[in-house]
């Protein structure tokens, strides 16, 4: 059960960071006219196609005692980054980035441009337009972004294994614990954890989609991340 709580803690940290960093990035990607934008879009989408082991491998190199991130971390905090919870959070943020950014881009882009024009003509600057118009009308997209990054982090395996290893209470997340139990033929323990993860995941999704439905009805239009646009 310790592993399950660690996974949930990791997922909460990752979703929170992704929401804070992903929203400005998504806003910029949704509005920029920059010609080189496609390059950044490709980078954001990379974790969708890369095997977690590839991502994890390079994350490990970067965070290692000789990697740039690892050395920076050492200089600032006095200890390394690899095989720590912080390192795990950082790698997971990169790994789940597209799951947060893409629903946000879709949501920001689906806000009627005329509303933004109206806001500007009424004297509101970009920031006020974002807080008062774009964000409230993107709530379903924001919820989707948080849920997807939460769920994606909760279930991740490859990256965690590469970057975090298997340190009990520090980096041993639920998926790794389950794998461990199965390897040692402890099927009862594996089943207990797997079932808990299954139940928890379902409960979270059900609550969120229920809320989403309410919000969408309030805003007056249905929003699903899966609808073609």
């Amino acid at each position, binding site marked *: 059960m310790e592993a399950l709580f660690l996974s949930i803690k990791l997922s909460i940290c990752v979703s929170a960071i992704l929401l804070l960093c992903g929203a400005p990035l998504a806003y910029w990607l949704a509005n920029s006219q920059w010609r080189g934008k496609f390059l950044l879009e490709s980078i954001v989408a990379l974790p969708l196609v890369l095997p977690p082991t590839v991502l994890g491998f390079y994350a490990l190199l970067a965070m290692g005692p000789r990697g740039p991130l690892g050395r920076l971390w050492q200089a600032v905090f006095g200890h390394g980054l690899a095989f720590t919870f912080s390192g795990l959070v950082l790698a997971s943020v990169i790994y789940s980035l597209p799951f947060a950014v893409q629903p946000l881009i879709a949501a920001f882009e689906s806000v009627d441009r005329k509303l933004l*024009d109206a806001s500007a003509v*009424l*004297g*509101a600057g970009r920031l006020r337009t974002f807080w008062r118009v774009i964000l409230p009308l993107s709530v379903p997209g924001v919820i989707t972004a948080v849920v997807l990054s939460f769920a994606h982090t909760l279930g991740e395996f490859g990256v965690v294994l590469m970057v975090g290893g298997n340190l009990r209470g520090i980096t041993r997340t639920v998926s790794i614990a389950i794998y461990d139990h199965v390897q040692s033929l402890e099927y009862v323990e594996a089943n207990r954890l797997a079932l808990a993860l299954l139940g928890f995941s379902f409960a979270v999704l059900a609550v969120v989609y229920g809320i989403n439905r309410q919000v969408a009805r309030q805003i007056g239009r249905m929003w699903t991340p899966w609808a073609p646009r």
Partner: protein
Amino acid sequence: MDTVGAQVNGAALTAQVRKERRRDAASPFVLDVSLTIPPGITILFGPSGAGKSTLLDCLAGLVRPDAGRITIGEEALFDSASRANLPPQKRRIAYVFQSLALFPHMSVEENVSYGLAYLQGQERRARVGEILTAFRVENLKTRKPGEISGGEKQRVALARSLVTLPRLLLLDEPLTGLDAALKAAIVEDLRAWNAAQRIPILYVTHTREEVDALGERVIAMDHGRVVSAGTPQEVLDAPRRKRLAQAAGFENLLGGTVMDVRESDGVMRVRLEGSASEIEVPLGYASAGDRVRVAIRAGDILLATELPKGLSARNVLSGQILSLDRRGNMVVARVACGVVFTVHVTPGAARALELAPERQVWLVLKTHSCHLVDD
């Protein structure tokens, strides 16, 4: 009605705007206008695609003109010479879009107070209450835009724009879809509000009825240019120049005289110069007796060797082939019907119909293939 010189508070808008828009490579759209709008309602009239909305976007600062100068009174909002360009937030211009663009997640009261962020609570509420009363929507304060009727939405949109005390009001077909009585009531409230404020109001429409109903000053636009300006009578009934095609690219350019105008059928009959033939052309800005030029593409004309029957095309002229010339994979036929028409047919069709000089033929012209053109 407003007479210039009678208690004018607001300053006039003057604008010279040039803006090129590439819709497709073949026909770039160029907006090139110069106009002065005094306080009071001025109607901007023209068919869709004439550039009315682009002009409004330029005035509001949402679109940057390529060149020109926009001033209200003494203040320049945009000046390509001095590179001045106020952002929309600083222009103090109100703009009611065709879609109204009310914020769907805010109540009527929140929508209307959105533009008053710089005011404190008490004063803000007072101003909002005042304008809601002026536009008769104070009872809707707590409703969301999705919960009120079309006419009410339009009133709220007007209130939201005007509560900021703008220097200019732009209305982009704001009252479409309302019945005449409701429209008139809203316009009356707008006039009443403006009796005190006296700001220039630019009201865009593409329907004649609205011009007749509102009109004091009218500016007619087409193809990105001001076509005429004046009273509704002067603009609508004076030489009609609606939808004039470019003469270039038409093989057949025929002079003619308008015999009669059948508004209900959407057509006019034009007698072709130098012949007794009459053809029907789409309704244009011309009156009976006017001389017009009609342009028809050689490829748009059908050629028949027998008198065709049961056709939707209204114009069938009989004539005689003068000459046939093969040009590449096309045959150019010259046909005399009183006037000489140039007709393009395929070599296969020419063979199958056994076309030959002096052969009697009939030409079929679809009404909408006949374009009125500018001299």
